[in-house]
């Protein structure tokens, strides 16, 4: 008699299946890479945010991080190199009920797309930008980027980087971003919380996540594997909410100041457009984007008051 129990693996659905295009797995990212952590945090944050997932759109540029748009199960555009932010701008303005999120890398957003980044921040465009900063162009083989710390080795700075890097939170702050935070990929729960806050923030929100590129940046600089990098993040990161963004520069293997640096409120681009037109044109102006005017809001409030 054979009474051995038959073992069948439980058919469990991945907790990520509602937010990822599971048919596209496995993804292209290397073991030890931090992009997956950010995607997981993004997925968690979205679930917690209570946003209608049909109204979320993701735009990415080019590079390893640029592939995020192709794996998340939302309306998504994989744009050209550096152009995710203007594509997101068009998407948001065409359909303001959307929550538009840009997820891309440091080379894409701060290098070739730097001009778009500063202008979207200046306009307080109501989008969320998540920059996965691994200090390198990974897809093309480990070249120096505008955020690579001085003295770090890259394939195009084989004798060490002699340029001054950008601190992205400082740039974002200076250009008018209304939410600015930085974390490392070790701090998954804090990334999640920050993304949730950013998704519910009105205006240009920016989150930088420092991540390892073990295949290129870490290996070329003899910094060990992914775990060693997380140890570095653990030992050298310091949470300083509200820190002056002028003091957020990152030296090679130096201290990483992180936290929520900026949270302020001012009219978004579209609010400013509507306010201006309504003031100048007057009652004839229909607010763009299906937004009820102040008068309509008052009328509605009065009606509700009567009903109660």
């Amino acid at each position: 008699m054979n009474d051995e129990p038959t073992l069948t693996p439980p058919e469990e659905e991945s907790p990520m299946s509602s937010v990822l295009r599971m048919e596209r797995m496995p993804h292209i990212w290397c073991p030890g890479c931090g992009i997956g952590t950010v995607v997981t945090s993004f997925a968690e944050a979205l679930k917690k945010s209570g946003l209608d997932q049909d109204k979320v759109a993701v735009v990415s540029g080019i590079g390893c991080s640029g592939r995020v748009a192709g794996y998340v199960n939302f309306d998504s555009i994989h744009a050209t190199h550096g152009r995710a932010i203007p594509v997101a701008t068009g998407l948001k303005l065409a359909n303001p009920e959307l929550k538009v999120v840009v997820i891309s890398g440091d080379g894409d957003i701060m290098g070739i797309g730097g001009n778009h980044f500063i202008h979207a921040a200046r306009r307080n465009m109501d989008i969320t930008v998540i920059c996965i900063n691994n200090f390198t162009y990974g897809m093309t083989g480990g070249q120096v980027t505008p955020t690579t710390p001085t003295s770090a080795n890259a394939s195009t700075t084989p004798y060490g980087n002699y340029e001054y890097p950008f601190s992205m939170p400082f740039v974002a702050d200076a250009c008018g971003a209304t939410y600015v935070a930085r974390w490392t990929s070790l701090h998954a729960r804090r990334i999640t919380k920050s993304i949730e806050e950013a998704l519910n923030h009105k205006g240009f929100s920016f989150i930088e996540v420092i991540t390892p590129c073990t295949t290129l940046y870490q290996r070329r600089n003899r910094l060990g594997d992914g775990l060693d990098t997380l140890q570095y993040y653990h030992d050298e990161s310091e949470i300083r909410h509200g820190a002056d963004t002028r003091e957020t520069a990152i030296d090679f293997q130096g201290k990483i100041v992180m936290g929520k640096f900026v949270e302020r409120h001012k009219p978004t681009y579209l609010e400013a457009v509507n306010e201006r037109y309504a003031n100048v044109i007057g009652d004839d102006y229909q607010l763009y984007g299906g937004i009820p005017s102040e008068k309509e809001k008052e009328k509605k409030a009065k009606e509700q008051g009567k009903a109660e």
Partner: protein
Amino acid sequence: MRKTSAEPKAVLAGNHFMDGDHALAEGALAAGCRFFAGYPITPSTETAERFAERCPHVGGLFIQMEDEIASVAALIGAAWGGQKVMTVTSGPGFSLMMENIGLAAMTETPLVIANVQRGGPSTGLPTLTAQQDMMQARWGSHGDYRIIALCPDSPQECFDLAVEAFNLSETYRVPVFIMTDETVGHMHEKVVIPPAEEIEVVERNYFTGPKEDYRPYKFDGGIAPMVKAGDGYRFHVTGLVHNEKGYPVINAEQGKINITHLIEKIDGNADKIIRLEEDGMEDADVVVLSYGITSRIAIKAVLDARKLGMKVGALRLITVWPFCEKRIAEISKTVKGIVVPEINYGQIVREVERSAAGRCKVISVNHTGGAVHEPEVILAAIQEAGK
């Protein structure tokens, strides 16, 4: 394709005295364009200014972007957000747009770009006319793809072809260029804007079936319907070679399917797309082929030649791309020569030579830009061709 008429509130029906740049903006509004992202550049800026002034009255949005790269990027985003979209530029800006024109071609995103041409290369002759971007319009972005390009010769046609550009763009899900020039752009003439109900507008074809059945592309010869971000279809589009679901597939086999489709959807419909204007072609010994502002100079030369007893036909390209190669091949069998005046160093004449394939003389009347031709130069070429 669902055809409707224009939305009355956006149509300034009536007789106007208007320049070509302004007529472009009015045509776009009549066609249903409600999103314009642009960057100022002479001699096209008036179109952007007009749109900026008009849009708050018609439920539209104008945004001045940081550059022309961002302008076309924003158009692509806005098109997938559900808007009909347009920008306008001139040579240097057109160069910057090429990157995302490729993305629009690859993602089959409908959008309209007007290029009010000025003299180049580089900063060139910013305030003076030219037709030097005709080949750039066709080949400017890297890789193999197809676009449609129209060429208005008057402010009236700027209006008319702006409407047609949007209709073609929606029908074939392709970038459509209006290749006008500084002269037409700044020339004031009578422009008749018909009542809204007389303006035929092609509405975007939206998919309405079950979510799991949606495919952003159709590679079997058809044009797939689109969806709008936020409608729950969770589409994905990419500049990478992709399958009908929009997912990247990086191999030669898929590249063949994808790229062949981009080419065939235009080449295969060329007869339906191409519009020409012909005059006196029946017994012509010589044909003057021209487009845009040059056709208005050419007609003077044609009339002068006829006075001299020559049999001269006039052929005007309203559609420049796709090129009317079949018609040129036909003509080349019966005429002695084709004269091609254009305000460049000989661009479209290459297409004429290719299509005529040595069956008749092809004479280029080139011009380095900054002014239109003297009709006498064209007349001399007609006489040469008739020998």
